[in-house]
């Protein structure tokens, strides 16, 4: 099977702080990986290394077998979608313009077909009624669904999610998770940093658990939730299950 993402012995430091320690992982095409772990454990750093938003000191990242290096960065990024915790929609553009900006400027798609595709994606995330609004006129959950649609407009083969629901009110979490679940069944390769264990159980093929910059546990959701191997993971699970 082809490997969509491969990380080999990644080391990353912020000054004296060792943020990623010898992180290796690989993900086959079409598989879903969930990343969890306590705050500050390096989950965001890890996922941002995959599309080069964060540089690393040592090791290699390969996307579809191609090394992520400055020359290929832009092309590889345009084939990977990323969804952020804070949505990061462009506030000066309408929903439609948010969705067509990259297709028009990066892929040179004609405006008309970019708009057609944008509307298709808006249907998919059930936001078609809001085409001409500005992001500030939408709720958090709606903004996040637009952000997902924006990423999908580039026709990515990989989607990266960095805590897409943790800035949302509980009632909005479901609408975003539903969109993500629907996306999962289409065969998209996905990496999700999330604490939504329901989503993990339902969609993930594999879970990795991080602590202090290291991957300390890796397995299927079944294994991880019922028989966490390390004390750290047990503690973490009991804490988040307690919350829920």
């Amino acid at each position: 099977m082809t490997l969509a993402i491969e990380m080999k012995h990644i080391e990353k430091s912020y000054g004296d702080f060792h943020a990623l320690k010898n992180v290796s992982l690989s993900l086959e095409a079409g598989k879903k990986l969930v990343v969890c772990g306590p705050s500050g454990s390096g989950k965001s750093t890890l996922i941002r290394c995959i599309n080069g938003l964060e540089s690393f000191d040592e090791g290699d990242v390969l996307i579809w077998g191609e090394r992520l290096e400055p020359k290929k960065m832009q092309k590889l990024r345009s084939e990977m979608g990323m969804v952020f915790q804070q949505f990061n929609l462009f506030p000066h553009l309408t929903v439609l313009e948010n969705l067509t900006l990259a297709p028009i400027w990066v892929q040179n798609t004609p405006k008309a077909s970019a708009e057609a595709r944008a509307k298709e994606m808006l249907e998919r995330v059930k936001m078609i009624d809001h085409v001409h609004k500005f992001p500030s006129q939408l709720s958090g959950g709606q903004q996040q669904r637009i952000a997902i649609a924006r990423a999908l407009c580039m026709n990515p083969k990989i989607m990266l999610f960095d805590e897409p629901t943790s800035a949302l009110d509980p009632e909005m979490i479901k609408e975003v998770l539903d969109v993500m679940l629907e996306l999962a069944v289409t065969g998209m390769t996905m990496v999700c940093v999330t604490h939504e264990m329901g989503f993990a159980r339902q969609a993930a093929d594999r879970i990795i658990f991080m602590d202090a910059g290291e991957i300390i546990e890796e397995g299927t959701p079944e294994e991880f939730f019922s028989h966490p191997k390390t004390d750290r993971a047990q503690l973490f699970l009991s804490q988040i299950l307690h919350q829920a």
Partner: protein
Amino acid sequence: MSELRVLKRVKKIDRAAWFGQTTLQKVINGVLILLLLACLVPVFKWAVIDAQIRGSERCVTEGACWVFIKVRLLTFAFGFYETHELWRPVFVLSMWTLALVTIFRASYNFTLKILPFFITLLPLLSWGLLDGRWFGLPYIETAKWGGLLLSLMITLVSLSMAFPLGLLLALGRMSRLPLIKAGSVAFIELWRGVPLIAVLFMSSVMLPLVLPPGTEVDKLIRVFVGVSLFTSAYLAEVIRSGLNGVPKGQGEAASALGLGARQRLFLVVLPQALQAVIPSLVNSCISLFKDTSLVVVVGMFDLLGTVQQANTDPYWLGYSTEGYMFAGLIYWGVCFALSRFSLQLEKVRNV
């Protein structure tokens, strides 16, 4: 429609504010209003009731003699520009007005697209038309340009040159390359530390000494360059503050979509940065417009210059109050229009 509603609401609030006051507050405010009227009434009497505007000779009334302004109006507006060629400055100023109105009306993104054309084409076109030689029109030397035309030309042309330069300087100052960064910082700090009047002196007196003899650069062009460099340093700092204010996530989202560095800047970061600093940008424009009156020191006659010169006309001696009042009104009018313009821009953009 909506503005009317706002106005009505404001009035309602005003009334509420008046009736909600304590007696002491009412007394104090009443006295203040009376004092204000006491000051304004004589001014009003002088400027309107006793004033004279008919005729073309010295006035006999004791009020304001607006005849003086009337007979000099063309000079105040255009300086000593040939009277039968006045369509040229009128055309140029209409062009700029039209451009401003377009910017005002157009959507924000369209504005950003046309702005580069405006700031390159309009100055060149203005120069060509006013000077005349490029278009085969009668040549009119810059020494004859004056009045409000000159003030506006210096402001608009210098701004057109200063804006792109200021943008480059702002980016330079934020650059990671130490040489570019140091160069930008040095340039900005140097020009911000010098008073405009010194810049004007330098450009008109010192520059010819430095340039190889024989090279002749028009005095007005030297003023344009001096004022542009001076203004660009201020604009650079305004733009930089705007760029700093755009959240990091915006650039990251653009990167993640595959946009290149330049696209990131021009499509995502800069539009937001500029939008955020519209009030400060307009503020810089207003001070620049008022500062153009300093060109008198290098022997040019802008609005204030022509007024001052008219004041010394022996036939019209004694009417300098009218002259200064008129100049003040025009300056105030232009600045007020600009600040309204900026308010509107902010409102339109902040959806």
